[in-house]
């Protein structure tokens, strides 16, 4: 990990020298740190026995701004604040990206059909959560979503189902259409239709808490690809996790673990519950 560079403002087109996650030691003589990660503006100020965090979420979930700088005083206007007490506070913080704490449901804007015996890859984009840890990753302090997605309900009716997040992703089909933003995570889902009739996809639930998180060499966040196959007789199969690989075949490093353990045999849920 290269040393901390102050006042960097990155556009997403050029590869930043370091990802926004990692260890941020406090410079001598400075008291705090500031990050802009997509729509999230996060400030942290240190005292001997305390770290104080103030954060504010922006309006636009699709902004790609990424910057980091040192600061000396907090500006808490319209911010949420949290204080952490220590016997002797560490002289640095670590940020770690995490996936959402609930499944994410994506609804293609227009109905999407998979013709018989065809397959396609849908790229689903979800918000990353920013986990703040004390020092070089020792003690987790708090988790903040880079953009708080809208609550949603996924289930066959209003009585049964589960609480999830609604993704604003348009379920893009072409990799070159994906604008990768530093605070967004891309999950490729392959849908294979082996049946004799077309499959209509109205909504897709990605079981994000069960997935670990990876990063590419360009510091873009990805999950393992997933496959769902609809068999010849029209029965929907379970969602399977594939081995981690990036579309361009580049290396990926694991940056954080799944929130929950997988169910048995690595199969998550049937298409019924996946597609409601």
């Amino acid at each position, binding site marked *: 990990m290269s040393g901390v560079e102050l006042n960097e403002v990155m556009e997403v087109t050029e590869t930043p020298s370091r990802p926004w996650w990692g260890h941020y030691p406090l410079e001598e003589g400075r008291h705090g740190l500031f990050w802009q990660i997509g729509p999230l503006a996060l400030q942290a100020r240190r005292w001997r026995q305390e770290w104080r965090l103030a954060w504010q979420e922006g309006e636009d979930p699709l902004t790609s701004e990424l910057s980091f700088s040192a600061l000396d005083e907090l500006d808490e206007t319209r911010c949420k604040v949290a204080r952490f007490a220590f016997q002797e506070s560490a002289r640095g913080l670590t940020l770690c990206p995490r996936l959402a704490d609930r499944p994410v*449901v994506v*609804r293609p804007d227009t109905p999407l059909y998979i013709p018989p015996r065809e397959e396609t890859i849908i790229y689903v984009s979800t918000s990353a959560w920013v986990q703040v840890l004390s020092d070089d990753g020792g003690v987790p302090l708090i988790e903040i979503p880079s953009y*708080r*997605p*809208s*609550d*949603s*309900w*996924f289930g066959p009716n*209003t*009585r049964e*189902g589960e*609480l999830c997040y*609604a993704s604003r992703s348009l379920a893009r089909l072409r990799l070159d259409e994906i604008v990768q933003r530093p605070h967004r995570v891309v999950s490729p889902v392959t849908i294979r239709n082996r049946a004799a009739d077309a499959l209509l996809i109205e*909504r897709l639930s990605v079981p994000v808490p069960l997935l670990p998180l990876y990063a590419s060499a360009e510091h873009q966040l990805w999950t393992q690809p997933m496959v769902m196959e609809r068999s010849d007789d029209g029965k929907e199969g379970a969602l399977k996790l594939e081995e981690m690989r990036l579309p361009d075949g580049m290396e990926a490093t694991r940056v954080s673990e799944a929130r929950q353990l997988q169910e048995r045999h690595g199969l998550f849920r049937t298409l019924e519950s996946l597609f409601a």
Partner: protein
Amino acid sequence: MDVIDFLFSDKGLEILRASVLVILGLFFAKVAAVITQRVSEPYLEPQQTALLKRVVFYAIVIVTLMSALHQLGFSLTVVLGAAGILSVAIGFASQTSASNLISGLFLIGEKPFRIGDFIKIGDTIGEVLSIDMLSVKLRTFDNLFVRVPNEMLLNSEVTNLTRFAIRRLELKVGVAYREKLSHVREVLMQVAEEYPLCLTEPKPVVLFLGFGDSSLDLQFNVWATRENWLDLRNNIPERVKEAFDEAGIEIPFPHRSLYTGSVTEPFPIRVVSSRDDEEPTP
């Protein structure tokens, strides 16, 4: 001397045996009850465990007492006969109590609500504190204690407000007649979209209720989780108002149009200038 003699006589030994039996029985009953509770706790609701515990305890106590009485030489048929007559008498006297008891058993079995749920019975809304043999205890929102007999719960409609995870909010709003409904719908949907606590699915819906006296009456249906419902209820109207203000959509006051008759002639109006006049207006 007399006491010890008596104790060692036949009668005395019988009484001693009976007492020992009763004491041991009570002890055993207590132990069995505790064991029953431990064993059944993971599998049953708290009130079902309590019930089972009591049944086990009293069953053993009754068996013990009957054995003790038998020891003392009482004929059980006499005792049972007396018990029979007594229970008929008590039964007549305690009809409502018995009814409540049976209702309680049905409630425990049917489980329309659990401890911690919020229920509405008649006009009373409260949190269920306990489901007992004869009644259910509620705590109202203003922290008052209400005792509802089980019979009443079984016989009338009970609404469980917290059974399902999500709940719909119906916000009635009226807009001026001059407003374009499609525009109003857009603005309302935008409000729902921007509020993260408002569920994206089930989708928010704008219903047209009717051409009201003073306004076009609409109903805005939005969903939230049970826990967030109150926040939704308080914040959505505020956001709707702000959005309407920004979009220039009017929520009208009640209107009344006045006509002078079948042939509408203008009302006579006299303009009286204000402020500069020193004379009071006639």
